[in-house]
Structures are given as structure tokens and as C-alpha cells.
């Protein structure tokens, strides 16, 4: 066990994967000498060479498309998108090509491609540097989508993603890059506690409300569970980890116990992941629900400038307010409607 930041854990996980399989190559802008703008690939070019850690031209569509070609050739490319907001130039290659090749070729072509995207806000960045584009990818069949939230998962899940024969969109919560945690480096592909990357994790058990979050908000949800327990509310917090496929089994088991569901994410509300989880859980657990599922999300506005971003992002207070709504306790919407 050693203590490291989430950023360092990713770096260590990438290193493990590169050592394990000589076909693993990293591609992206500024990932060589600079080590990436977040230093996730720091030192890897020095140790593995410029053909395994490739500084690419400044062209996301080009990066993604050539990574597909490398996968045809038997490589396992790991692509770094510099910031969430810059994945869109590659969007066509991801949703029309990466996602569909296996289906289109009747299973003959595998695209073991990992697309790393630092995502989410809260770091005071300019435009296009704080987005939560996960729903676009979750909506696309053929892609697996995961979001890590802590160093141990970062270390293990990056290795699992790279070893996966499906394309994986791998979201990294940039505002948690510097969070520290214990990492057991003997736990790689099998995941901590044998947890596969497509399984959700119960962060803390509770009996009154199920609270689901992922990526940057997993920690906030755990904090909310602690704060709520001071108020006498027992929250079961779940870190979703896999956004596609969603581990509905874990959420369902929890909601059958608690009868209440709150989902938190930074992405805008409309047609976001919260909508999918609310609808699916309602279908599965309608007779167990004591209250309509509650969403606590970013607003339906473009990600705002940094002076306003902390109003847009669900924080501890807003999540607790959502918990109050699910519990039917006094909350910011009291008197105007029952939940939302």
C-alpha cells in the first residue's frame, strides 16, 4: 500500500499496463515531454520512448481516427483528450466509427481503445474546460463509459479499461486529481475487492435514502451522507463507477431497502444520466418507492464562467436539499411542489 494522488495513481496504472502489454501505446497532445497538461503521463515517454507515448498533431479527429487504425493493426491505443470540451472534434470518429466497428464487422474487428477525458468543473477554468459530456457517450451503443473517483479505482480501472476489448470512454474527475488515497499496487486488473470496472460500489450503507453519484461527486455524496447522519437521516451513498452499462442491480437492491432515490451529477439535467437512472429505477422499483426520484444536477445552461460555476455545480448543500426533498422534509421547494 502506498498513499498517492489520483493523478499519480493513473500514471502508475498506465505504467503497469504498458509494462504488461507492449501493444499499449499512448497518444495525445502534449503527453510526451510535458507529461500532459495534468501530468498524468509524466515520465512515461522518457521510459517507454516516443513510439509508445506519442505527441500527436493538434487534431482530435485525427488522433481518434488514427488510433482506430492502430487498433486494426493490433495495438491498444490509449488516447488522451486534453480537456472535456475538446472531445467534440473527435465526436464523429467516436460515435460513428469507434462505437460501431465491432457491430458493423459482425464482431470481426475489435477496437480496444481507451479514451481518457479529464472532465467536470470546479477548477476555475475558462470556457470548454469544465464540461460533463458523459451523456452523449452513454447514449451511444457500443461504447463503455466509466468514471473514476478515487486513487485506488483510478489505478485499477485504467488497467481494466485498457485490457477491455471494447472501446472505453474513461472519465477522470479533474478536480479530484490531487486528492490522495491509499493504493494497493498489487490490485490491478482484478480491481479492489475483485470489483470489475462495470460494477457500482456502495460507499456507505444506509436505510433512508439511496444517493447515487459518480466521478467528482462521489466524494461529495459521501460527505453528504455523513452530514445527513448528523441530522438523523441514514443515507446509502453509491459510486456508480460505470456509466454504461449501469449496474442497476446495486442501485435497485439499495432502493428496495430505502424506498428513496437521489441522483447527483454535474452535467445538465435534461436527458442527463439522472433521467435514465430515475426512469429505470422507477420501472424496476415502483412499488418500493416512497417518493419520486430526485435529481440534483447542473442547470440546463452552458457551463458558466468561473465566477458562477459554484452556483451551477451541485455541492454538499444542494445535495442535502435534494435528500430533504426525497425525505419529504422542509426544503427549498417546500410548499410549491412535492419533489421534482
Amino acid at each position, binding site marked *: 500500500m502506498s498513499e498517492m494522488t489520483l493523478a499519480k495513481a493513473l500514471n502508475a496504472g498506465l505504467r503497469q499496463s504498458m509494462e504488461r502489454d507492449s501493444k499499449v501505446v499512448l497518444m495525445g497532445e502534449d503527453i510526451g515531454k510535458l507529461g500532459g497538461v495534468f501530468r498524468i503521463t509524466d515520465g512515461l515517454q522518457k521510459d517507454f520512448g516516443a513510439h509508445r507515448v506519442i505527441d500527436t498533431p493538434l487534431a482530435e479527429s*485525427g488522433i481518434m481516427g488514427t488510433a482506430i487504425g492502430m487498433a486494426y493493426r493490433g495495438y491498444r491505443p490509449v488516447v488522451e483528450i486534453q480537456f472535456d470540451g475538446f472531445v467534440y472534434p473527435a465526436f464523429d470518429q467516436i460515435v460513428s466509427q469507434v462505437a460501431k466497428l465491432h457491430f458493423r464487422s459482425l464482431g470481426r474487428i475489435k477496437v480496444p481503445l481507451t479514451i481518457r477525458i479529464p472532465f467536470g468543473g470546479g477548477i476555475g477554468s475558462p470556457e470548454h474546460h469544465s464540461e460533463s459530456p458523459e451523456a452523449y457517450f452513454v447514449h451511444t451503443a457500443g461504447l463503455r463509459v466509466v468514471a473514476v473517483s478515487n486513487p485506488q479505482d483510478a489505478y485499477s480501472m485504467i488497467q481494466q479499461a485498457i485490457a477491455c476489448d471494447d472501446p472505453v470512454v474513461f472519465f477522470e474527475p479533474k478536480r479530484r486529481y490531487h486528492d490522495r488515497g491509499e493504493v494497493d499496487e498489487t490490485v490491478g486488473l482484478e480491481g479492489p475487492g475483485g470489483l470489475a470496472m462495470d460494477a457500482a460500489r456502495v460507499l456507505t450503507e444506509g436505510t433512508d435514502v439511496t444517493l447515487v453519484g459518480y466521478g467528482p461527486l462521489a466524494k461529495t455524496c459521501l460527505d453528504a451522507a455523513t452530514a445527513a447522519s448528523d441530522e438523523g437521516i441514514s443515507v446509502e451513498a453509491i459510486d456508480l463507477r460505470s456509466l454504461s452499462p449501469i449496474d442497476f442491480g446495486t442501485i435497485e437492491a439499495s432502493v428496495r431497502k430505502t424506498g428513496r432515490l437521489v441522483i447527483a451529477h454535474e452535467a445538465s439535467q435534461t436527458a442527463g444520466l439522472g433521467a435514465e437512472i430515475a426512469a429505470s429505477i422507477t420501472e424496476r422499483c415502483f412499488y418500493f418507492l416512497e417518493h419520486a426520484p430526485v435529481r440534483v444536477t447542473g442547470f*440546463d445552461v452552458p457551463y458558466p464562467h468561473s465566477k*458562477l460555476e459554484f452556483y451551477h455545480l451541485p*455541492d454538499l*448543500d444542494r445535495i442535502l436539499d435534494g435528500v430533504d426533498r426525497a425525505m419529504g422534509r422542509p426544503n427549498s421547494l417546500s410548499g410549491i411542489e412535492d419533489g421534482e
Partner: protein
Amino acid sequence: MTAGHGGSPIQLLSPDGVRHPHERYDRFLADVDGRVEGADSAALLVSIYEDMVVARRIDAEGTALQRQGQLGLWPPFVGQEAAQIGSAHAIGPDDFIFPSYREIGVAYARGAELPDLVRQWRGNAHSGWDPFAMNMGPSQVVIGAQTLHAVGYAMGVLFDGAETAVVTYFGDGATSQGDVNESMVFAASFQAPVVFFCQNNQWAISEPVGVQAHVPIARRAPGFGISSVRVDGNDVLACLAATREALERARSGNGPSFIEAVTYRMGPHTTADDPTRYRDANELEDWKEKDPIARFEAYLASIGVVDDAVRARAAEKADSVAEAVREATIHMPDPEPESLFEHVYAGPQPVLERQRDHFERYRRGIEGGIGAGAATTAEGGR
């Protein structure tokens, strides 16, 4: 291929400030060379010089304000004053500009209100100036996207039968983007009156220009059917002349042009960048000798246009502009929380109205202390 398009860039002022005659370009400098009756060439030259000095000072102030926590980020353009101010002085008030994020010198020369230069870097908005008051689009962060907008605007100009031209700025890295290449296809096919102004400052964050292009960038445009030129981007007269030539081509119905201004980013990519990780210090020293302002000043001194009094006046102006930028930054009020919901759509939109209403209730509730929602925020930097 046009002269100056692959080999050494066209230069009218050598690094020691000596003006060399140029067969092709002297025609575009008749006014600043004092060959146009009634034109005050000294005044023109001094205004270019002053703009360069002030632009550098604004840049230094921006960096300082970021270091002091007053701005979230700043993209320095020190070293690129000749490319920016030279080209900006060629562009007419009716012409439209589509910049990247680094054209702060262009925006200043264009007459931007000083607070508008820092507004977005402070995090108060996603843009500063009014695009239609300045005929200059907001700064663009998505690399290369603005070049397509420029071509579309130019197509509109063409279809309107107007005399306006369009200039778009971007970096060497941007030339790798699909958008930039697609914009050249459109521009050539429609013979759009657009000028592609590439500031090749040698670096796209940590990547040297060689990662983007195997041959001089100016050579790419002819493949699209666009005439191109490579100029010394630290030579303000070369930048002025080349831009004037390209604008003349646009206005006379002869289609798009591509200018590669070969220059150097003397500072970091942004205030968040550490160039020592990827850049050799000697390189910076070499480029310091080609400093665009020192070179122009030497030339102006040699023809008697700049003396100590002019220098002092420029420095004084730079100081007062910097002071104004600082004051504007420090006293810029934070935007109202509810303004989050403004300008998402042209008019009211029911779902958003509802979210806004809930947000207002929530904020009031937090202040008044309702339920568990009144718990103290444990994170975030409000």
C-alpha cells in the same frame, strides 16, 4: 509558388532595424514610407510603435494580475506584437476579424474597451467586447473553429456584393485541425474574401511546429488553391504590407490568401504552463535578438521618427493603460448568481424558467436556513 512561401520569410526590416527595399511590398508601404502626399508618415509610424509598446505592457499587466489572483488565467502574447499590431493596422474598420484567444494586441489596436480585454480571463463572462461594435468576434478557445466562421462570413460578404474583407487568426497548431483545412476548402471553392493569418509562434503548448507540419506551413495553402506567403512575423512592416496585399486581393474579388507570420512566443503558453519542461532556454535567447519592438524602434530612431520624447510618451501611455486595466480588473463586480440563466436562449424557455425559479428559492432558503440544506458547504471555493 509565390516567392517567400517556403524558404526564408519575407523581411523588410532586418533585426538591427535596417529597412530593406522590397520589390513586391514597397507598394503597400507608400504611406508609412512618406511617399503619399498628405499622409503623415511619422504619425502613422508612431501610432504603430505606440500600439506595440502598449500591447506589451497590457500583456505584462495581465500576467501580473493573474499572479496576484485577480485573473484566473492569461495567455501571453509577448514576442508577437509585430504580427498582431502590424496586421491589425492593415485591417479596415468595416472588415471583420475572427480571432483565437491570443489576439489581445489586435483587440486593443481595434479599440476594445480595456475592461473587455480581461473580462473573460477573470471568469466574469465567456467574452468581452461587443462583436458588432468592434467588427471582431469573441475570442475562440476551440482550436481552429473560428476559421470556418470567417469563411462563412466572407461568403456572406461575397453574396452581398460588399467590399468588406475578413481576417482570421490562428496558430501553427491549429493548422492540423480538420476545421482549418475544411475552411480552406470552402474559401478556395467559393473564392471567399478572407485572409488566413497564421501566427506561427513555433509552439503549440509543448509541441514544436514540426509536430504539426513537415514543410513550412505557408506551403499548405497552395494545395487548396490559396495563394500564400511567409513573412517575418517579428517585422511589423512586413506584417502590415502582407496583410494589406491580402486584403487588396480579397477586396478586388481575387479570393482568399494565407499569411504565415513566423514569430515566437516568448512567454509561457498561458500562465498555467511551464515552458521549462519542454523548451530550451537558448532558443528564447536567440529569439530575444529578433525582438519586434526593439527592431522597429531602431528603425524609427534611424529615420528620426522616434526620439526620447516619443519613447517617453509611449511609455507613459503604456503605464496609464496598464493602470486602467488594473483598476478595471480589481473593481469588476462579480456577476449576479441569477445571471446564470440569462442568454441561454433568445427568449424565455419554460424548463429554464422553472430551474431559475427553484434556484432563487434555494438561494433564499440557504440564506434563511432551511432543513439540512443549511449545512455548511464543505468544499468549493465560493
